[in-house]
C-alpha cells in the first residue's frame, strides 16, 4: 500500500531526453521477478551499469542522493512503451515520488498514480524552465494541484480526481470496486 501523498518539497533531477520508454526505465530481461519489491537497483539499469554489471562512472544517476532529489523531470512522452508496472515500482523504490514532463504516456501515468509516484503534466513554459534549470528545489501540493517553482513559472496541474483521492489517502481502488459487488452482479444478470 503506498504512503499518503500530500505535499512534497524536494530538488529536481533532470533527464534531458524525449520518449524515455519503459525498456529504459527497467529492461525487460529483469521482468522475470514475481515480486514488486527491491526494483530500484534496476531503474535505468542499462544507463547506469556496464555489460558486467559494474556501475558506470560519470553517470549522475549513480551519484544521486534520492533523499534530497525525489522529483524526476524528463522530456516529452515519458514512460512510453509497455504496460509493465515494474517501471513505476522501480522508480518509486529508487526514491522518486513525482515525475514531471510535458507529456506522459497513458498506461505509465495510471500505473504511477497507483504506486505513490505522482505524474505531473507541466505546461510548455514551466516544463522548458525545469529542463533548463536542473537541480532546483520545488514544492508540489497535491491538494491544491499546484507546483511552486520559486523563481520559475509556477503552475497548476490537472490530475484525474479519483487518482488524486487515492494518492492522498494512500489507498488502492480495489476496495472501491469490491464494495460495488451488487452493481457488478446486476450488470451480469441483465446481460445474461
Amino acid at each position, binding site marked *: 500500500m503506498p504512503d499518503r501523498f500530500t505535499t512534497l518539497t524536494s530538488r529536481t533531477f533532470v533527464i534531458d531526453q524525449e520518449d524515455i520508454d519503459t525498456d529504459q526505465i527497467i529492461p525487460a530481461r529483469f521482468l522475470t521477478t514475481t515480486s514488486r519489491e527491491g526494483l530500484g537497483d534496476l531503474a535505468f539499469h542499462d544507463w547506469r551499469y556496464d555489460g558486467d554489471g559494474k556501475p558506470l562512472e560519470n553517470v549522475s544517476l549513480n551519484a544521486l542522493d534520492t533523499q534530497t532529489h525525489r522529483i524526476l523531470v524528463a522530456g516529452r512522452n515519458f514512460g512510453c512503451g509497455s504496460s509493465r*508496472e515494474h517501471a513505476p515500482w522501480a522508480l518509486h523504490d529508487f526514491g522518486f515520488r513525482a515525475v514531471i514532463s510535458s507529456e506522459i*504516456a497513458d*498506461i505509465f501515468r495510471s500505473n504511477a498514480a497507483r*504506486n505513490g509516484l505522482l505524474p505531473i503534466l507541466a505546461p510548455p513554459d514551466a516544463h522548458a524552465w525545469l529542463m533548463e534549470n536542473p537541480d532546483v528545489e520545488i514544492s508540489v501540493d497535491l491538494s491544491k494541484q499546484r507546483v511552486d517553482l520559486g523563481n520559475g513559472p509556477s503552475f497548476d496541474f490537472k490530475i484525474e480526481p479519483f487518482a488524486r483521492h487515492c494518492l492522498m489517502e494512500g489507498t488502492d481502488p480495489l476496495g472501491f470496486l469490491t464494495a460495488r459487488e451488487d452493481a457488478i452482479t446486476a450488470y451480469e444478470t441483465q446481460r445474461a
Partner: protein
Amino acid sequence: MSPDSGRPRSLFEKVWDAHLVKTETTETPAMLYVDLHLVHEVTSPQAFSVLAERGLKVRRPDRTLATIDHSTPTLDFAPGEAPPYATEAARKQVETLEANVAEHGIDLHGWDSEHRGVVHVIGPELGATQPGMTIVCGDSHTATHGAFGALAFGIGTTEVGHVLATQCLLQRKPKSMRITLEGPTAPGVSAKDIILAVIAEIGVDGGTGCVIEYAGEAIEALDMEGRMTVCNMSIEAGARAGMIAADATTFAWLKGRERVPSEGPAWDEQVAQWSHYRSDPGARFDHEVVIDATRIRPMVTWGTAPDTGIAVDAPVPDARSASHAKALGYMQFEAGKPVSGAKVDQVFIGSCTNSRITDLRAAAAIMSGRKVAPGVRALVVPGSVGVRKQAEAEGLDRIFTEAGAEWRQPGCSMCIAMNGDKGEPGQLIVSTSNRNFEGRQGPGARTVLASPATAAAAAIAGHVIDPATLMEPAHA
C-alpha cells in the same frame, strides 16, 4: 441502453456503452465490465499475491484465459524433459502462474496445450476474441484484438488484480480518433508497412489518450492477420487501443473456431449481433486523420522509436532534435543515406505483431529456394502451436530450414529478449516485432523494424533491401 442511443455512434462508443456497470462522475471513473481477461506469467504474479493477501477469489475464471509466452524458451525439448529455461527466475515465474491458475480454476494453455502461444495470437485463434467484446491483458499489445471490432487494451498489474477480483476496471472514457487509409496499397506493401507509415505520420505520441479506429479501403482489403498487425502497434503511437469494424472478413475468419457457435441458427444469430459493431454513418470522432495509402512503400525504421519509419530506400532524415541525434548515433546510421544496404547480423520473424500464418507465408515466399546469407542468423518463431502446425502442414518449415533459418517453438522470443533469444551488443537485427527501443532486443542491440517480407529479404541478402527485388521466385 445509452440515453442518446439514437445518435450516430462510433464502433468504440458502442462497445464502451454496452459495458458500463456504472457511468463516470466528476469524482469517479466509469466502472467498465471486462468480457475477456488474458493472463500471462510476467505481469500477473504480483496481482495474484494481492488477491491472496486480501483473501479474494478470481470472480470469473470462465472469463479468464492464461498462457505462457514471454519468459518461455523457444528451443525444442523432448517430452518428459524440463523446458530449457534461460534462467531459474523464468522457470519460477512460469511455475508461479501454473500454481495460481490451478488454485483459481483458470484455463491455462501451458506446455501441454495444443494452443499454447503468444497471448495475442491464441486469443483470436481460439475464437475467444470476438466483435463487441471488452478485452484486457497486462500487456500493451492487447490492442491486437481490436482487429475484430473489440475494445482491447493493456493494463498494469494493479489493474490485473482489479479484473481478477471484480471483472471490472475503473476507466475514464478515452478520446476517439479515426485514421482513414484511402485508396489501395501498392502490390508488395503489407499491413506492417501500413502501420509503420501511420505511426511515422502521427508520431510516437500522436494517439495518446485516444482509441483509434482504422478505416478506409486499404484497411478493409486486409485479411484478419493484417488487421491484427495494424491494431497491434496502436500503442506505438501512444494510443490506448486500435479497432477495426467487424465485417464479412471477420466473420469468415472466426467461423469454426473453438469458442464460437458452429453453423446453424446460433451462428447466424451471432453474426447478426456482431454486425452491429461498426461505426454508424455520421459518427463523430475527436480527431480525424486521412492518409493516402497508395503512396505507402515497404518500410523500415532508422531510429530508436517506432515513429522513425521511412521507405526502405529513402534517405534517413536529418536529426530534428537531440533525441534524434542520439538515436542516429546508437543505430550507426547516417542522415542522407538510406537504411537499405546496412549489413545485417540477425533477422527475427515472429512476435505478436507478425507471427501468424500469413506472415510466415510471406517470409517463406522470399526464402523459398534461396539461402540465408553467410554470417546472418535468422530465427523464425511461430506465434502459437497452432500456427506452427499449420506452417508445417504447408511445408513452410522446410523452406525455412533449407534456407538455413532456425525454426523455433512458439513464444515472444527475441521481441522482448527475456527468454534466451536475443541480440548481442552492436548487432543489427531486422525484426518483425514492434519496438526498436535502445536495448529492447538485448543490451546494445540495434533494431530495424520491418515486415516479414522485408525481414526475410534482409536475411537472404545479408543487408537491408527492398523485398520487391526478391519477390520473383528463385530459379530452381
